[in-house]
């Protein structure tokens, strides 16, 4: 990398090309005779009662490495990752906020991590009570009476929600055929509606980026089971006509589904139940700060109104008059189950710890998130194009329109941000903004971090005009240079082979 680019990048030397740049695969460290584990000697007779034909002799090509090498390997690999604890990670729609470590500690208590959901109820009261308390808390925050914690992640929550709608409509004689989804929605919405057996009709957004009531009026027929609406939407804009929207949907006997991926924008400030929402999933790994872990585990609880309570997934957690808790499997109108056991219980522990730390002041989360997004917007609106200028809540979506004039795309800007020490925003989503740069700073970023991010984005905008080749060739300082994703799909190598 040239001295000139280094100067332009104006990044500290210690962030340039950290070592190691590449790390061998763990399989490439393997060697006969190396061992990384020990077990106690077998204290029962060493028998094998599996017939030869049903047995394997060996696990060919598996590793032989020591614990020392494992420690080095995974520590080195970790250093090739960017993470929230390093700096702002403004991945829009993903709510990359600080993950409190108390929550991690709590989830690892043996009384939570080393317990089995099919242990007798009498020795599982602590975990049942925890699930019940989390349900009550999420019910209070959403203003809806019941919540299932079972879905494994947001997408499965969406499916659970739409399946409950379907079951309720079937009970009243007609499951209907269509689900309405705005063109700004997350891709999981249409995919989930499809897997619930519905046709999807896409609604074109208004010039403000919100739902167009006239479009909704004409699309909302008695063939429509539900409207799936993200609140605030993926542009970060609150549907200020939400009460009118719910009235239109309900007037035709449909259900209003709220995609709660963006609950961080109004948690503790407003309640979906008061908006006329009938069913809503939340992402514990977004609003409630359970760690994203490099892509999961998630957890996607779903809150429902009274009409859908009989259809909740099985089992539900219930409290007896004597204060003890039990699992209720006897729910004949349930949609059934969508996974094994009770859900991602470890995430329930973390989410309850998180909510408890804020308690009745949890509205501060939303207030901080909205303040930060608006601050970033104010700092960048004169250099990046804002296709929709409706008020922003927790995130702001710019586009690369002005930078395209210099031949630079949103993806190039994203890569260049890495040189400045930031994770890029979400790019190319929502689909209704061509060349989107979707920025969600979250409430856990302080002013100095936001200022540094704004400064970097402005610097990049200047580079796009004055020396676009620097941006087009980015990133310059990451462990690897731009990765050939097209080549990966063309010539598939999906595993190591000796």
């Amino acid at each position: 990398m040239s001295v000139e680019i280094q100067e332009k990048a104006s990044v500290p030397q210690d962030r340039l090309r950290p070592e190691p740049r590449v790390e061998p695969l763990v399989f490439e460290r393997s060697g006969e005779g190396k061992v990384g584990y020990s077990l106690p000697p077998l204290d029962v007779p060493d028998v094998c009662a599996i017939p030869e034909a049903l047995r394997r002799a060996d696990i060919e090509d598996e590793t032989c490495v020591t614990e020392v090498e494992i420690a080095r390997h995974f520590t080195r690999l970790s250093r090739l990752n960017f993470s929230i604890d390093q700096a702002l990670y403004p991945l829009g729609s993903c709510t990359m906020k600080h993950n409190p470590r108390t929550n991690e500690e709590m989830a690892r208590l043996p009384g939570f991590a080393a317990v089995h959901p099919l242990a007798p109820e009498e020795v599982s009261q602590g975990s049942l009570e925890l699930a019940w308390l989390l349900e009550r808390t999420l019910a209070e925050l959403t203003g809806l009476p019941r919540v299932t914690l079972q879905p494994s992640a947001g997408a499965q929550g969406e499916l659970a929600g739409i399946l409950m709608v379907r079951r309720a409509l079937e009970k009243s004689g007609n499951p209907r055929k269509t689900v309405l989804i705005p063109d700004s929605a997350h891709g999981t919405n249409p995919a989930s509606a499809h897997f619930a057996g519905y046709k999807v009709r896409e609604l074109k957004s208004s010039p403000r980026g919100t739902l167009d009531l006239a479009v909704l009026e004409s699309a909302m027929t008695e063939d429509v089971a539900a409207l799936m609406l993200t609140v605030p939407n993926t542009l970060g804009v609150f549907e200020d006509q939400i009460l009118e929207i719910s009235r239109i949907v309900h007037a035709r006997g449909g259900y209003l589904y709220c995609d709660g991926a963006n609950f961080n924008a109004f948690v503790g400030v407003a309640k979906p139940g008061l908006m006329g929402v009938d069913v809503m999933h939340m992402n514990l790994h977004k609003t409630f700060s359970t760690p994203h872990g490099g892509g999961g585990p998630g957890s996607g609880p779903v809150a429902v109104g009274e009409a859908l309570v009989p259809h909740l997934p099985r089992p539900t957690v219930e409290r007896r008059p004597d204060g003890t808790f039990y699992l209720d499997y006897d729910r004949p109108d349930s949609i059934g189950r969508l996974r094994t056991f009770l859900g991602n219980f470890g995430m329930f522990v973390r989410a309850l710890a998180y909510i408890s730390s804020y308690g009745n002041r949890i509205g501060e989360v939303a207030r901080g998130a909205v303040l930060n997004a608006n601050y970033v917007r104010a700092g960048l609106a004169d250099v990046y194009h804002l296709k929709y200028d409706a008020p922003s809540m927790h995130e702001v979506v710019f586009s690369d329109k002005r930078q395209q004039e210099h031949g630079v795309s949103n993806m190039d800007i994203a890569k260049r941000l890495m040189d400045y020490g930031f994770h890029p925003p979400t790019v190319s989503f929502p689909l209704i903004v061509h060349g989107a740069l979707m920025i969600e700073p979250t409430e856990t970023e302080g002013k100095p971090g936001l200022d540094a991010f704004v400064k970097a984005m402005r610097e990049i905008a200047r580079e796009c005009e004055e020396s676009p080749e620097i941006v087009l060739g980015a990133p310059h300082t990451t462990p690897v240079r731009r990765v050939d994703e097209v080549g990966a799909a063309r010539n598939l190598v999906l595993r190591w082979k000796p």
Partner: protein
Amino acid sequence: MKFLPASDAERREMLAAIGAPSIDALFASVPQAVRQAPDLAAPMSEIEIRRFLGGLASRNANARETAFFLGGGLYHHYTSAIADQMLYRAEWLTAYTPYQPEVSQGTLQSIFEFQTHICLLTGLEVANASLYEGASALVEALLMAERLSKGRRRAVVSAGIHPEYRETVRSYFVNLGLEIVEVPLSADGTTDAAALREAADESTFAVALQSPNFLGLVEDWATGSAAARRVGALSVAVVAEAASLALLSPPGRGGADIACGEAQSLGVPMHNGGPLLGFLSCRTEHQRQIPGRLVGQTQDAEGRRAFCLTLSTREQHIRREKATSNICTNQGLMALASNIHMSLLGRAGLREVATQSHAKAEYLKKAIAGVSGFRIPYAGPTFNEFVVEAPGNAAALVSRLAERRILAGIPLSRWDPADDRRLLVAATEMNTRAEMDLLVAALGEAPK
């Protein structure tokens, strides 16, 4: 508040820069009618959170402080301290989906290694980056087979598949116009091969078999593969106890086209049932229909080996309602834990965990068979779990023993109320002979 880094002065400066009089003013688009503060308790300090949640945790019987024999698709196996401590590193814990490969090579390479481990264990050629857990992994495997069949509508599944997996399949399938035929078990507790063959017809897209099956009995993958092959369907192998893959003949060798299930046993604590670790592997010829995330090897602009997510045109964020699946997240952190575990134990350790689990279960099975009034109803080979028939009500027995800190097993009445005298008992390398002797003695003393 301790997770909100702005000072009062900074907040004022930010509002001034925005040109808003107050934070409330930024919420002007939220109608007053929908605003309401939540009725929750006051904020808790860290000390109070530890007290509160620690109190709840102390009321659960945990596997470290009991003689523990529960399984049923979730097992108490050895995990090394290094795996969990590695998970605490912020670079793993607080990163997200590696959409930007230049700053995510750690996660990407770890997934690539995980995919390789799953291939080696299942004997198949391709594996994805993980799925939520076993039951939804089976759903995804069946839907994949359905897509590959181009128009077939029937899945034939053995009744030996975990009942919660089968219930999950029904929840997903009921609205998709797909038919599920469940083939009963024969008297010996394994899948009725003739009935399986009969149920699979020209409209069948998949034949699914679990081994060890839900009753703990080892099945022959070839039974499912033969029935599938005859009608041009795909053979789906379900594994709910993945530790067994190190000892039993792998699905790939038994002719399975897709292997799927639960890999929790390979390095993930029980977590009271979640987060777990679903897996799915298949043959190369079917790789373009595999659901979920997939990491591939490629190069960077300087020709260096690098990894990235690949074939994402299958996924919902591109294909929307035409995607292969609606799933978005996988189980990133659990796949990492499992990769560390499998890499550490490796060829010898994975094998030893499996052989020890099996030997302990054999010891326990034989000992329980010797207790007056108790029977082992099935004679076929088991891996580390087996059915015990008690002289009286199994659920009452299990509850009584739980008072003595013995978690003896899972009553089968949990899934079939009429099946009230039998329970599933599992053993792993974590059980000592003394614990097993304690269980056997307690069964001997139990009122009949």
